[in-house]
């Protein structure tokens, strides 16, 4: 079963290794040993996300993810949570545009339990799924939506910008949380069909990382997952390809009861998995990452027109990525002042590119983010699944940082010049209204559809978490 990859560290992988295997039913398996701490991470990525959802059923992939914690043939009700936590483990699941993941981090001697649990729901969820779970989790997810998006200032931002940046009918036009109306409309039969269509061993990658015996682990995986039948017939997701450039500046002004004016924007950027995407990551870091970036220095330190200013990158493989600008204004500064300064900085950067010092700083920051991500067994398991599902090769996870370090300043300048331009962005402007006039609108907007992590919005543009929903 091993596919030829041996456990020999590649250059630039920090000494980490991974082996790949495939069961007869098509389940891909990635194993990586690390005996420093007696823990083991199990991570299962299903190649299904909100981009696979049909019109009128937004939010179904995420609602379904919640249902995966409601029991299966051999696991009662909340048993999945109870058994993992009772074994000293932690667990969750999240849904994004491009995938749904489930993960358990276990004390190493409890690894087999996690594998048994994941196999049970992969193979037999529908034996337990009923109306009661469906109705209950529908209410829980609607409350998740209210808590994370509808009842917080700027909660509208992520959903609105996404809808602007990807045209009507595009698979990424809506966010994973979905609309209240569609959550209400989803039926038990929708959920069953979703499972039958997408939850199959040949549509998943399983990674196990940590203090494991690879042979024993593989034997357990064969034992528990091996008899789950493969299922073909998954429809291809709608094509997410778009022209490189939007071609015009899209714009929406939101009048809401928010504490300050804000300028947010989404730039269309190269797809994840390309050198140009890594170059864009560096460009956004130089321009808007941390507290020594060009935009922070300009807006927060020098002009003092903003309370926070930053750029983030939402990496996407099946559609253009998004460069995410978030600026909250200071005092009564008006948005056009901010916008002019941003445009000036972006234009200057497109001409001159990064200085050697800026390049060094941006690469050091991204390198350290990678060290953090690969520094825990759970983070490593997730990245191995990511590269296996999205790019067909988990080994790429271990050399990702090397690729970022190989990008040249000229590549960074090129991508900035080509992409970070006014005719390639969707802009969202927040204008505060007072409580008296604002509350009816706020209530209405809440029922419509919003998204974004807002509680710590004053800090900077954080996009990586915003597109993920979780069960816990």
């Amino acid at each position, binding site marked *: 079963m091993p596919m030829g990859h041996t456990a020999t560290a590649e250059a630039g992988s920090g000494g980490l290794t991974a082996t790949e295997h495939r069961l007869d039913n098509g389940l891909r398996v990635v194993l990586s040993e690390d005996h420093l701490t007696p823990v083991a991470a199990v991570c299962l990525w299903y190649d299904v996300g909100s981009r696979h959802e049909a019109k009128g059923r937004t939010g179904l992939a995420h609602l379904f993810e919640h249902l995966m914690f409601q029991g299966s043939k051999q696991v009662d009700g909340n048993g999945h949570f109870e058994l993992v936590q009772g074994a000293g483990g932690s667990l969750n699941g999240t849904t994004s545009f491009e995938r749904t993941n489930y993960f358990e981090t276990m004390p190493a001697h409890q690894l087999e339990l996690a594998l048994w649990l994941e196999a049970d729901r992969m193979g037999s969820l529908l034996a337990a799924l009923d109306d009661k779970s469906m109705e209950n989790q529908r209410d829980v997810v609607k409350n998740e939506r209210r808590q994370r998006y509808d*009842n917080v200032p700027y909660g509208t931002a992520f959903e609105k910008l996404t809808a602007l940046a990807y045209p009507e009918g595009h698979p990424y036009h809506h966010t994973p949380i979905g609309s209240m109306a569609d959550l209400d409309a989803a039926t038990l039969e929708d959920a069953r069909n979703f499972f039958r269509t997408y939850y199959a061993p040949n549509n998943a990658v399983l990674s196990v990382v940590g203090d494991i015996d690879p042979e024993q682990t593989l034997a357990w995986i064969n034992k528990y997952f091996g008899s789950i039948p493969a299922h073909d017939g998954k429809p291809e997701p709608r094509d997410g390809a778009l022209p490189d450039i939007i071609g015009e500046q899209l714009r929406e002004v939101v009048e809401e009861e928010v504490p300050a004016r804000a300028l947010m924007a989404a730039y269309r950027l190269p797809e994840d998995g390309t050198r140009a995407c890594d170059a864009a990551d560096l460009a956004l870091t130089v321009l808007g990452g941390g507290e020594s970036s060009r935009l922070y220095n300009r807006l927060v330190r020098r002009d003092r027109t903003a309370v926070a200013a930053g750029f983030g990158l939402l990496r996407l493989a099946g559609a253009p990525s998004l460069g995410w600008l978030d600026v909250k204004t200071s005092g009564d500064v008006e948005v056009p002042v901010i916008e002019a300064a941003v445009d000036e900085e972006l234009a200057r950067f497109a001409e001159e590119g990064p200085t050697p010092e800026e390049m060094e700083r941006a690469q050091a920051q991204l390198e350290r983010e990678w060290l953090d991500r690969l520094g825990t067994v759970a983070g490593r398991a997730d990245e191995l699944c990511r590269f296996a599902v999205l790019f067909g090769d988990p080994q790429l996870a271990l050399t990702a940082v090397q690729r970022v370090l190989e990008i040249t300043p000229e590549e960074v300048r090129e991508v900035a010049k080509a992409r970070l331009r006014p005719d390639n962005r969707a802009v969202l402007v927040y204008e505060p209204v007072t409580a008296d006039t604002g509350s009816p609108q706020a209530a209405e907007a809440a029922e419509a559809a919003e998204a974004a992590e807002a509680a710590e919005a004053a800090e900077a543009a954080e996009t990586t978490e915003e597109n993920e929903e979780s069960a816990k």
Partner: protein
Amino acid sequence: MTELVSMEFHPQPQPGEARPWAFPAPERGSLDNGLTVLRCHRPGQQVVAVEIHLDAPLDAEPTGLDGVATIMARAFSEGTDKHSAEEFAAELERCGATLDSHADHPGVRLSLEVPVSRLPKALGLLADALRAPAFVDSEIERLVRNRLDEIPHEMANPGRRAAKELSKELFPATSRMSRPRQGTEETVAGIDSAAVRAFYEKHVRPATATVVVVGDLTGTDLDALLADTLGAWTGSSGEPRPVPPVVADDTGRVVIVDRPGAVQTQLLIGRVGADRHDRVWPAQVLGTYCLGGTLTSRLDKVLREEKGYTYGVRAFGQVLRSAPDGTGAAMLAISGSVDTPNTGPALADLWNELRKLAAGGLTDAERDIAVQNLVGVAPLKFETAAAVAGTLADQVEQHLPDDYQATLYRQLAATGTVEATAAAVSAFPVDRLVTILVGDAAQIAEPVKALGIGEVTVVTG
């Protein structure tokens, strides 16, 4: 209707043999300047965590200058005798480092994380920040204005708003704990560089500070490195500050912070109770977990998994401030969000769960699963250097011995169901809880009054 299932089933597997793990024991020492040093080698952790605790608590802030400790903490990364503010930020980021700082009731904390290859450089910058902060007028002015800009964002956030209201309700107006940690618009506006420098000179010195360094220190001569960096920091010797006692009024009552049109109500239900110096702490941790520690705890079993009123409600205990003599206190609270129409029913269920707990107690099965989780997750929880360093620094600021966390795990394992029940019931007595609700008063006030959980008042803002 059930579906035909075609896979082969196996019985639930039994665990293998547990592999030993213990919370790491740090090595304690000090530098010539009196700085206390805790270090801990964690193989494989390439990102090193450095925590600094300064004995500059919020109650040391001069009257009328609430927030000066916060501005000082932030100003540490805004320039030194060697670098301007912009240069300092750039140099730190060149190391791939992050430096966070914040001021809280026990003191000021700085948290540095950096790849071990660049530890010497980053530690040098941190030492400069502590030894010779610039506190330039214009940078302090900017930080003050920035802080003033942040306040409306915090007030608009339901969770932050609830926390501020609870502090105001629980503690007497004379107590620093009753007021926002980072100051109010009035107090912050009065802070300038002279005030920041005065606070620094009075309360920041190596003799009353501690540094914690955790990570893969193979090949790092930490003694030499510390001597070259933090060793150059000087200051007079200083006595630890006395810790004022914590008093709180937990008479059962309800305050609604009115948010017309809000689609959810943010709940924060709290009081003050025992901290880690109290023998009841392990039982309180266990009991609180059983009540509301996770999705399968009592509160979520009903409010989330049966009724669907919420995405999740949590009960927790969080140390406010501890004293060497054991007179410190922790905030014991229950928090979460429920949809507006179900606010009354959700609170009724919540109180019902508290009454059921008091009447019937926890089961042995609940206790067992809680112990297995709380003790079992330790190796996962402390996988990173940052997690270990944070806990060690918490122990220092809470005047606990270095082996506290390791001991706590043994105590948790030895705590029985009866003790856990008693601790949870006395932590959350039904008539001694202050309830803050941030939500639409027009819709929730009447149903909440009908519950009889205390007098209901409505405030705006």
